[in-house]
């Protein structure tokens, strides 16, 4: 037991070191870092202004009929927060190994005396913290401009939902990260996945407006439950299923995606070692 605790402490230090290393690299390029904080805000605004142009104000009777609340600004903003989490899995985590390759440090990272999952946890920790900061700035500025109307009592349970959802997204991120080891230039995979997920997750609209086959596909995406449950807690969205069901399905998706992510990661790791293509560019 003592040995196990000692080893876990050793791993925790490695996870923290990976997180700190990423912050140091990013903070070296300050203008880029600041731009990264502003981008999600600029990204969300056209969707909000488009909504206002369609409705002629911030309240939509149609949306009220579909989800129980007509406030398009709060509805769309809370949905767009989750794009940040998707980006974390698809781009930040997904391209972390490729980034190490650009820097010429992938071989050193892989030769370190820790299991691969420790490295994956380190990049997940950094991505989560960085994304959390970006989302905070986005919410703060949109709240200053438009004044979001949320139920403060829903904030804590919302954070809990996000935490459970993140576990599933880490699995997705690990899978993409390992795929880049094979494809090398895997942007197209991330672009395509990101485009598809943007459509089927109910970010700026409820699931009810999607065709049936897309609604069914959305049920396998963790962010679907994350978005709907958070909006349920913060603005009373009618989900069509209970909060307990949502947590249960999120937990199931978490187990499934993480297992899938680890298996794919292991298979590709072994394959690239066997074929000797790890150092290929």
């Amino acid at each position, binding site marked *: 037991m003592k040995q196990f605790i000692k080893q876990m402490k050793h791993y925790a230090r490695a996870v923290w070191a990976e997180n700190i290393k990423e912050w140091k690299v990013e903070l070296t390029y300050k203008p880029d870092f600041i731009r990264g904080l502003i981008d999600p805000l600029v990204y969300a605004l056209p969707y909000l*202004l488009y909504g206002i142009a369609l409705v002629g104000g911030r309240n939509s009777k149609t949306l009220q009929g579909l989800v129980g609340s007509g406030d398009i600004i709060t509805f769309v903003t809370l949905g767009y927060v989750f794009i940040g989490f998707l980006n974390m899995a698809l781009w930040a985590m997904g391209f972390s190994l490729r980034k190490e390759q650009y820097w010429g440090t992938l071989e050193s990272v892989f030769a370190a005396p820790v299991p691969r999952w420790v490295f994956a946890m380190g990049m997940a920790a950094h991505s989560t913290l960085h994304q959390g900061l970006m989302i905070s700035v986005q919410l703060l500025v949109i709240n200053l401009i438009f004044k979001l109307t949320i139920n403060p009592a829903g904030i804590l349970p919302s954070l809990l939902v996000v935490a459970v959802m993140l576990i599933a997204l880490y699995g997705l991120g690990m899978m993409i990260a390992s795929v880049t080891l094979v494809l090398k230039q895997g942007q197209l995979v991330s672009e395509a996945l990101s485009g598809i997920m943007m459509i089927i997750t109910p970010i700026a609209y409820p699931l009810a407006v999607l065709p049936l086959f897309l609604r069914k596909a959305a049920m396998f995406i963790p962010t679907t439950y994350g978005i709907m449950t958070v909006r349920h807690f913060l603005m009373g969205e009618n989900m069509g299923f209970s909060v307990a069901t949502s947590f249960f399905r999120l937990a199931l998706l978490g187990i499934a995606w993480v297992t899938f992510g680890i298996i794919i990661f292991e298979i590709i790791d072994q394959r690239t070692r066997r074929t000797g293509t790890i150092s290929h560019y």
Partner: protein
Amino acid sequence: MTFKNNLKIILAENKKTIDIALSYPIFLVFWGIAPLLWLLPFVFQGKALVGGMSSASFKALTGSANFLPFILIGTMVSTYIFSGLWGVGNSLREETYWGTLEYIIASPTNPVVVLLGKTLAEFILASANVTIQALIATFFLGVNLTLAKIFPVMVIVLLLLIGFYGFAIAFAGFTLLIKEVHGYVHSLEWVFYLFSPIRYPVEVSSITKTLSALIPLTYALVAIRGIILLNKHIVNLWQTMLILIGMDIVLIIGGYLLFQYLERKTRQAGTISQY
């Protein structure tokens, strides 16, 4: 260098860029279709907010109640802009990745001539992508793009692109100086999305309306939508065309001078070959 020699270089560079692009056909198909994928969330958002495909308040702002063709036109025209931004603006940076920038700079050709070749190639590739989008819009989404409207639309697109490519050439000079501009290109993309009517009518806010007046894309989109959606004749859009011509002159001359200045500055600093 004579005009004939420069023309040969432009055509050779054009061929080289297209050959490289055709080596990755999946990228070409993907970028032809992807902008239409990005459009779908707007369609579903519209359905969720107004319960159909048209809106009275949208009509009050744009003159057209149907929001799908509005966004489709924005998507197609912006394909040219973003391909120019990445393909021309970032092209010298790509030469750095390939290790061929020094050869271009050291050759007895003005780099602007090489950039003109890249610009021509980018225009051809973007036109191929827009054609795919226009065919999908016409046959699957019911947008009325008749041949009679294509000629005046192309005139406006060319007036937009002449100035924009001037800006992109200046941006290419910027990459010589600061090297990695990936993030800046992304930021510029979002500036265009936010302050020009690609995805929403900028008239919805006085701030976006005022700032959009500084961007040539705004005038081009208003004119093109006028021709396609409101059946306006190109002759009635002469004021917009004059503004675009004025912006073209400023951007082409300004872009050329700025590129020359940035290139000279990078040579003097001795940082051309730095990565």
